[in-house]
């Protein structure tokens, strides 16, 4: 034995000089493995493509269904007087009904357009003869039914015509009457003016909470399954002989975070691009740019929160079948704001409970973007909520790291949280 000793020392001295590996290079290697193995998986690519296809299809459907802010195509036959056309357009505008006017060559051509669905209504001159006095100077042809808001527009104009006729018959000046009526308004002072909500805000708010929910749940489930995969395949013992448990957890969370972020950027980016190209959100009050930036920030914070929680919880079990039950409490924390959004917040964006909840780290990633879609957040709210959530992260990371380190090498029966914390 003593003979070989000098050789060994020489060999050790001449052996490969290993660079002092920093924590970050270990974490980087682990994260890179997650990214490369997961993005290469066919299932991941297919899921991403499906998600992109679904959101783009959603935007296109919204576009072809007439846009989120409804606009009507109304045709006027050439023989409708210009005054009538102007009057209808003015009335529609006053009633906030979006309307584009076109002039088909003839009534037959207009009816063909009605049938094909390119026109919502066709205005033709009043059929001469049996019209009673004061009847409007036009008639409307539709394919099946007239949209209520267009109907209201036409009716308002018809009533105006009737009123004018009566006023003239009584010897008055319709113009004076109209001006007097126009000025007779009740002054209303709102103490807390409610912002106007358009349909697009509800749709975008719903889409935001759904995408956020899917992204956070999918991402943190990936983390949970990854933790258990390493535990059940026992590879974790080899890994932990090389890297510290917290590095392993951090690398996994980081890597999977990047993978899910790629998927989300692809999905939301495709949706935003489609919305931009079709102009489907142009008329909406949503500040899409800032909303997207904030949503990415909320995704990152939310993913870190849920990924850390699920990594810690998943480390308590050794089999994939047990992941569901052990992670249930954390999933409820995500389910809560999701359900609240769908059932309350979308209809009542200014709800006080929603405002308060959107400052709680677990709920903020879901609720803040939705409230932002409705423009009901004051400029200070998102930064403050983000600071609160980010300040909460080190506490959560410390706790999750302790649980993970205490549990990840103990295979077999499910470990109690208390035991994991104690043995860390």
């Amino acid at each position, binding site marked *: *034995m003593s003979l*070989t*000793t000098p*050789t*060994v*020392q020489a*060999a*050790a001295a001449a*052996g*490969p000089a*290993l*660079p*002092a*590996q920093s924590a970050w290079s*270990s974490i980087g*290697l*682990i994260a890179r*493995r997650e990214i490369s*193995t997961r993005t290469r998986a066919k299932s991941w690519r297919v899921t991403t493509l499906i998600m992109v296809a679904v959101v783009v299809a959603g935007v296109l459907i919204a576009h072809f269904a007439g846009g989120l802010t409804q606009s009507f195509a109304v045709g006027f036959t050439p023989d409708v007087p210009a005054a009538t056309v102007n009057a209808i357009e003015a009335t529609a505008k006053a009633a906030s009904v979006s309307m584009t006017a076109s002039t088909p060559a003839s009534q037959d051509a207009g009816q063909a357009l009605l049938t094909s669905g390119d026109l919502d209504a066709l205005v033709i001159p009043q059929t001469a003869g049996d019209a009673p006095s004061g009847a409007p100077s036009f008639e409307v042809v539709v394919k099946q039914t007239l949209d209520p808001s267009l109907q209201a527009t036409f009716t308002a104009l018809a009533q105006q015509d009737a009123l004018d006729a009566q006023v003239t018959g009584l010897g008055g000046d319709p113009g004076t009457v109209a001006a007097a009526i126009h000025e007779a308004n009740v002054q209303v002072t709102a103490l807390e003016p409610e912002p106007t909500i358009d349909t697009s805000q509800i749709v975008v708010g719903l889409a935001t909470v759904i995408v956020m929910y899917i992204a956070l749940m999918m991402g943190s489930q990936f983390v949970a399954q990854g933790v258990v*995969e*390493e535990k059940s*395949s*026992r*590879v*974790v*013992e*080899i*890994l*932990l*002989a*090389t*890297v*510290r448990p917290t590095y392993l957890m951090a690398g996994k969370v980081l890597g999977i975070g990047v993978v899910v972020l790629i998927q989300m950027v692809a999905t939301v980016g495709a949706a935003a691009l489609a919305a931009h190209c079709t102009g489907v959100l142009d008329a909406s009050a949503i500040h899409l740019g800032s909303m997207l930036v904030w949503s990415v920030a909320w995704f990152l914070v939310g993913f870190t929160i849920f990924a850390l929680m699920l990594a810690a919880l998943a480390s308590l079990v050794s089999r994939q079948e047990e992941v569901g039950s052990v992670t249930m409490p954390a999933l409820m924390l995500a389910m809560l704001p999701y359900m609240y959004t769908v059932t309350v917040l979308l209809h009542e964006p200014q709800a006080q409970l929603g405002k308060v909840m959107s400052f709680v780290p677990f709920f903020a990633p879901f609720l803040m973007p939705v409230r932002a879609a409705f423009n009901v957040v004051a400029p200070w709210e998102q930064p403050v909520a983000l600071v609160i959530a980010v300040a909460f992260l080190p506490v959560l990371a410390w706790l999750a790291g302790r649980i993970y380190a205490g549990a990840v*090498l103990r*295979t077999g029966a499910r470990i109690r949280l208390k035991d994991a914390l104690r043995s860390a």
Partner: protein
Amino acid sequence: MAVLDVAGLTKAYGDLRALDGVSFRLEAGELFGFVGSNGAGKTTTMRIILGVLTADAGTVTWDGAPIDFAGRRRIGYMPEERGLYPKMRVGEQLEYLARLHGLDASAAVTASKRWAETLGIDARYADEVQQLSLGNQQRVQLAAALVHSPDLLVLDEPFSGLDPVAVDVMSGVLQERAAAGVPVIFSSHQLDLVERLCDRVGIIRDGKMVAQGTIADLRHTDTPQWMIDGPTGDGWLSSLPGVRLISQQGARTVVEYSNTDGNSGSSTSGEAAIGQTILRAALAAGPVTEFAPLRPSLTEIYRHEVSTTEESAAHQGNGDAR
């Protein structure tokens, strides 16, 4: 100089004392066999050396200093529970583990390919681990332990589940590593293999090292025995002090020497001299066709060491029952 010094390791799981003062030293270039029944504490000891478990008491020193995280990364480890990513390709897996141990990208590829070739799995380099047979997965596992040219090898049951050819490959690699100066500690239930390969052996029982030393040390006894195929009867023995007849079957006689005066017979040279004296006495009594010292095999030593407590425990158990 001791490369690895394990001193007084103690570990308890609740009321169960898994390790109770386990100590041993591992010299450079030494193959150390670690044997003991299931649950005796082999895996716990190895996990503590690797730092995946912490001991309640005791130290692990490496070249004279307590082993730290950087030192542990220079160990090649094969855990009892085999562990690899099932869906990762063999090559990628080895390269990844090499890089985690600090090799740069190109060195990791070179080392992975070299070990895959040495262990005969280079044809499966691009296959997923789960597509390999268990024996081949075991070879990948060994490659994973070797890929970063470790300064120490800690292998938990490296031979379990291997076919004879794979056992030869594995033995060859371990001997080659030891010859290169790397100390190797491995556990096994295949005692003949341990006897053949190891320079030294440690027997652990109920968390305590009950015997350790070279195979020759362990075989040594104060009451050596010999087998003589030759003269019948025990008349020729009478002239030999301290020698007594153990058994006789036809022409085969087994004799035992026990030291009566208390100053000789304990050294190997003394033992050999006594053997020659016995042989001469036998030859004087008649023709001898076979003469050999009867040395206990490692299996017999192991049985003896392990059964000692198991018997006493059994007796105690019976006593309690009554």
